[in-house]
């Protein structure tokens, strides 16, 4: 039971704080839900894998937590976790890309925007790649491309299914055409996976756009999405600027894609592992 219910936090009962202090304190412990507009205790949210306990709204989930959610406890290993970009373009905007990479590595504890792991999902050995939106918007550059291509090769080599959980704004601008070509590289590897008759399940989460959607995220034997995720090729702002009109409510959300035939199913986060396990039974006996 939460502190919220035990002890109603009225202004009188709270310790007296300056407005600025209070704001900081509130931001640290509470989260306003975009779904139901209610204030939720962050601990409650974390325990429930970032799904609102009141309305079921799916907040974003980082890659380490997602791996914990999908794989059986204690029996997975990560791959290529030391691969880092060598900055092929020597890209510098307001600061060098190489420094930006180091800053994101420090703040996330990740080497780049995807974690590749092998482990068991309901007892079945699988390859899993999980993207992390916190790392430069989950963008795909040479490291993401290589880690996913190697995961596909491990799947084929070990005759195992593959699950990729996408969360990405698309190709990584700072690696230019090199990141663009990762779309073709990964898709070609998926062609081999397809020829090997091994299942690939693509899980699309909020947000999955651009070059990631336009390559591996849409190439699953099953493409399944979490509820309410933004999924598309062009970003909503780009489309609005092009057509100069407001976009319809719910445009490019999971439910919109399901209706237009682009998804096999929408699966809530807490049922995701069970669903994938069931699907793999269909594919692999």
């Amino acid at each position, binding site marked *: 039971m939460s502190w919220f219910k035990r002890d109603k936090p009225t202004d009188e009962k709270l310790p007296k704080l300056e407005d600025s202090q209070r704001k900081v304190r509130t931001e640290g412990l509470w989260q306003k839900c975009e779904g139901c507009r209610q204030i939720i205790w962050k601990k409650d949210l974390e325990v429930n894998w970032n799904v609102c306990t009141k309305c079921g709204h799916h907040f974003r989930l980082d890659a380490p937590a997602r791996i914990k959610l999908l794989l059986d406890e204690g029996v997975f290993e990560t791959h290529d976790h030391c*691969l*880092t*970009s*060598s*900055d*092929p*373009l020597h*890209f*510098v*905007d*307001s600061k060098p890309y190489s420094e930006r990479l180091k800053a994101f590595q420090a703040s996330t504890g990740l080497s780049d925007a995807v974690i590749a792991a092998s482990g068991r999902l309901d007892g079945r050995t699988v390859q899993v790649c999980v993207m992390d939106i916190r790392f430069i918007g989950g963008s795909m*550059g*040479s490291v993401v*491309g*290589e880690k996913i*291509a190697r995961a596909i090769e491990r799947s084929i080599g070990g005759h195992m299914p593959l699950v990729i959980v996408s969360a990405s704004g698309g*190709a*990584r*601008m700072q*690696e*230019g*055409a*090199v*990141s*663009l*070509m*990762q*779309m*073709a*590289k990964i*898709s*070609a*590897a*998926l*062609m*081999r996976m*397809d020829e090997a008759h091994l299942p690939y399940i693509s899980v699309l989460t909020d947000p999955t756009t*651009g*070059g990631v*959607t*336009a*390559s591996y*995220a*849409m*190439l699953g034997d099953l493409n399944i999405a979490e509820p309410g995720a933004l999924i*598309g*090729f*062009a*970003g909503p702002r*780009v*489309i609005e600027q*092009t*057509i100069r009109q407001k*976009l*319809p409510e719910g*445009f*490019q959300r999971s439910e919109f894609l399901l209706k*237009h*035939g*682009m998804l096999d199913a929408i699966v809530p986060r807490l049922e995701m592992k069970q669903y994938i396990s069931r699907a793999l039974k269909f594919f692999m006996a």
Partner: protein
Amino acid sequence: MVDPEGKTATPEEPPRELDPAWRRVLLARHPKRPHSLDYIQRICNDFHEIHGDRLFGDDPAIVTGFADFDGRQVLFVMEQKGRTTKEKIHRNFGMPKPEGYRKALRAMQMAAKFDRPIVTFLDTAGAYPGIDAEERGQAEAIARNLREMARLPVPVVVVCISEGGSGGALALGVGNVILMMENAVYSVISPENCANILFRDTGRAEWAAGALKLTAEDLNALGMIDEIIPEPPGGAQDDWDTAAANLRLHLAGRFRELSIMSADQLVEHRYAKFRKMGNFFA
């Protein structure tokens, strides 16, 4: 054969002090620059367009058709921009929709069935960002092409003739050989959008063009393309015939090289090419 418009009109020659990459961007988008069908008129005979994706419609932003080329029966799959306002609107400013990419794939699979080689021309600012395109699965159409082009058992030669606009260009770009015209550009994002994202200022597009390393020389140095096709002095806009003759020569040479490879070798060759792209990590 020279288009009188393209030959006689004074092009808006970009001044010299421009960033060299930005100058290429302006040349690639030059209003007098030859488009796909201008090259087709000059490099092959007996071209016949085939229409439609057999699913939804026919997208004029992509032209597919068969022709005699250098003694072979070849399928051409091309992004096509318009020149007059009316043509531009008809071609949707060269921005394909899902039905365009699906038409392209249908045509390529048909060519593969009859063991015919394929040439693709890339020339687009990007895949169309619109409500209808999203509804019909723009991302899915591009993604499918990337995977299916990887397994085509026939020679595929890709030429970025002017503007290689991100995924919208790459959707026709999975080939055994990738060529770029000297003044073409190929990029993950337009310089304008890049500048807008980084600095909220499209005025810094010139800077972004340099930073994105999008010229033919840049892509060649990065190992993303195989060869640069030279253009006449000043650029293809000044002399369509010479540009087309150079393109023809390079295409014919590449086909002769690829013609000795078996279907399996072609698929393996294409796979190996893309698999090693972007080994920029430690």
